[in-house]
């Protein structure tokens, strides 16, 4: 099967722009990036499924020249899930705005704390520091 060059390039462009936006700190921007990537991966399904053809609706006994229905079913569910996810991320953006008057994702304080500990070689919350437990300390 010969692949479709225009669509393949379009997949790349949608992913490139999508990734660029996804790496931004604004939730809305990242969401828009995700939507671009979503469109890109749906088109990737088309390219991978082969040639364009008739709609996969059985009319006679002949099913040749029909486009592949299985990827289409998968993409269809993906489209609806994307809608649910869009709504969810927008609700998150809204909540973040309510709390901080901004939809920017800040650094996670827990992770920053772990990083600080790693840099300071701080093992203080390990259960295995010091030897308070010699052989068997029954209560």
């Amino acid at each position: 099967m010969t692949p479709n060059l225009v669509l393949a390039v379009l997949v790349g462009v949608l992913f490139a722009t999508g990734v660029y936006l996804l790496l931004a700190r604004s939730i809305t921007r990242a969401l828009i990036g995700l939507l671009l990537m979503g469109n890109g991966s749906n088109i990737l399904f088309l390219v991978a499924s082969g040639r364009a053809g008739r709609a996969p609706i059985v009319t006679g006994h002949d099913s040749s020249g029909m486009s592949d229905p299985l990827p289409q079913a998968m993409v269809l569910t993906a489209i609806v899930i994307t809608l649910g996810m869009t709504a969810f991320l927008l609700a998150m953006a809204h909540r973040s705005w309510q709390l901080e008057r901004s939809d920017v994702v800040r650094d996670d304080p827990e992770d920053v704390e772990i990083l600080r500990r790693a840099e300071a070689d701080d093992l203080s919350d390990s259960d295995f520091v010091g030897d308070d437990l010699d052989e068997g300390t029954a209560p």
Partner: protein
Amino acid sequence: MIALLLAHVAAAGVAPALVRRWGRRAFLALAVPPAAAAVWAAVSTAAIHDGHPVVERYRWIDGLHLELGFRADTLTWLMVLVVGGIGAIVLVYCAGYFSDDEPLLGRFAANLTAFAGAMLGLVTSDDLLMLYLFWEVTTVLSYLLIGHTSELRPSRSAATQALVVTTAGGLAMLVGIVLLGERAGTYQLSEILADPPRGPLVTTAVVLLIVGAVTKSALIPFHFWLPSAMAAPTPVSAYLHAAAMVKAGIYLVARLAPGFSDVPLWRPVLLTLGGATMLLGGWRALRQHDLKLLLAFGTVSQLGFLTVLVGTGSRAAALAGTTLLLAHALFKACLFLVVGIVDHATGSRDLRVLSGLGRSLPVVAGCGVLAAASMAGLPPLLGFVGKEAAYETFLHSSAPGSTWVLVVLVAGSILTFAYSARFVWGAFAERGPRSRVVRPDAYALVGPVLLAAGSVVVGVLSTRLETLTSSYSRLWPADGHAVHLGLWHGVTPALGLSALTVLGGAGLFAVRGGVERLQAAVPTSLDAQRSYRATMRSLDRASLEVTGGLQRGSLPLTLGLILSVLVIVPGGSLLLGVTWPDEVRWWDTPAQGIVALVVLVAAYWTARSRRRLRAVILVGITGYGTAMLFLLHGAPDLALTQVLVETVSLVVFVLVVRRLPQRFSDTPPGIGRWARATLGLLVGAVMTGLALTATTVREAIPVSVDFPRAAVEFGGGRNIVNVTLVDIRAWDTMGELSVVLVSATGVASLVFLRQRFVDRARQALERTRSEMAERPPGRGVGWLARPMGVASERRSVMFEVVTRLVFHTVALWSLFLLFSGHNNPGGGFSAGLVLGLGLTMRYLAGGRSELRAALPVSPGALLGAGMVLAAGTSLVTLAFGGEALQSWIFHLHVPLLGDVHLVTSLFFDIGVYLVVVGLMLDILRSLGSAIDDQIEQESELTS
């Protein structure tokens, strides 16, 4: 056997309730299942020893060759007696040991009963995988039991240590099991042992299994967990750490020995570890002051002894091994129970503090002395019989190294005699002012008395024991010298060795002060406990460094890391081992090129855009363009759904974006612009590469070639995509509906936040309902039903008129799509989205009250009903003898409509429809109405 197991499970289930009701006496009832197991074994004695193992098999998962297989032969019989009998005794003891106000007693009772069940399962399983399952259940339960007093740090730490060590061994064992099972072609133990496979792979497997046994039975170098585990309540130590869990490893070795004792490595490994453990445990026991720790190290020593015996793999050694196994269970459980009573009676277990208990607690002391005598190997107790048989075995064995083994056993037994004496002297002798005691509870005495009596009775009747257990040892051929159980074999070299043991042990006890000082002076350079802690510490350290290095808290950095992996791994494989297509086509139709160009430009400007709304509209254009591409590809269903979703998304975006600033903020990003662009380009290039090569690497014929025929014949529809969704791959759709449900719930909970906001919305809905019932929408109200959600200056008559005119048409169209979707483009998804768009119009024209009037139900009801309908369809077909989600086709004649052919999957599709409508209503109500409400409240507050 499965009935006995289920009885344990049931008892564990009701244990907390029983304890709440009856307090500690509930343990008496809980002792019934293990007692029943022991009785069952006793009743089946005759059949089992006639060489008719009791076998039960139940089908479980055919595809994985998993079955519930149980088999009771002589070894199992012995283990069931030990596990069930001592389990029952310990549970009865609990009824006298604990106080009614002991915290978390119900949970403890459940765990202990369940543990007895797991042990029973472990020793009766005839399937290696099931054995592993029970093995790990005992590990988990032992964790919970050791950590019973979870508020104490040593207790938690000891529990974790036991868990980590035994699970690590368990995992090694699992690998061994899989290797062995795959090599043998079966996981059934009895079959594997009947024809044991051989080869380097099997040797590896057996060594891995031994690792499991060694960790479980606390042999060197993993012995350290057992003394630490003495943090557990004493009944747990008596059961887990004397009779049951630590014996699991011994059981495994004994079980495998008939088939594998001549595998290379088997004997050297087991005899070395066993012998070393016996000596080390005995030596360390001699310096303990805590009676319980003394017993713990003694147990370590005895487990080493047992490993040597069952690991040797000869008729005589097996006989001695099984005898000692029983002897050890009897005397060690008894001793632990005695220590528990002493502890409760005096408040101490320190042998430097206790004094005069021999006189103040005569019954307890009597039991303790008898059990200790059995441990020391004095006649006429069972411990003596076992030890004598062991000496006899190695005195007459011609196997290489037997003399060394014998030397180790004698030395170990001398140590055992010495620490047994130390125990009796420390616990019961009078060495100063007599300790004050509290009378023990009668129930607590039952166990020690029975167990001590057992040591005597079985010891005296040991010749009878031999006839019962010898069918296990007869799995090995008779060798030169026959060994028999008994108290008196005449004056033999073995008797001489026994005398030597007593003399040596007594001597060692006499110089106990010197021994203690010597031990204190010799540094323990190879401390396993310390190396365990060092290992765990470096694990903690490594995890800290890895987490700190990879997860820096910045979302862009984390995403960047993930995407870099995408570039490196799949991208690298594109460069290395993939065939690229020889030729490419530009497009299928030139129209694709034009649309692609539009999408490309729109995508570029989306990325450049700094204004929020502009970015939203541009990404919408890419979406509509994608829909066009779907249509050009020959996917009308996709095109329809995509157009609808894109429209809905635009509306949703606008609903939320109205609250946010117009421009994206300029906070410094986690990654610089150029880095983001570079990573974007790399990912884009990889994806283009994947798109180009995806078609060339395809090898198999697509599964979908049969779909057209299947859709018509089994699915009863001509639209293959729709039939795929509701029938052929309906399970996928079911999963997707759940995702939709979850995200809708997420949206609602992020917006409503608190119960009172939800209540407010519910009250508003009820108000609208009752208003509509009183005053049906009609003349005088206007074009819409309840357009009071929009301020009058913002109302648009034109929009209201259009909404009024098209809404019902839209609703009808939605139903048409739903019912015709099986044969033509449409179906539940697009139909639901269409109705959702109609609702959106009503909401935009008339505000939130209009939305409530348009569909006066809560979105939750729609989502729930849809999910129930979709799942229900699968259950109904199942109930009528079909497969889940199978379609049935009915042909009906309906007046006016003519012949209708009804496919049951239509109901599934209606479920899909309801879920999608529910999602739409949920979005409008949360991101629309609820935010309107918040905006209004805020403006009221500010004005």
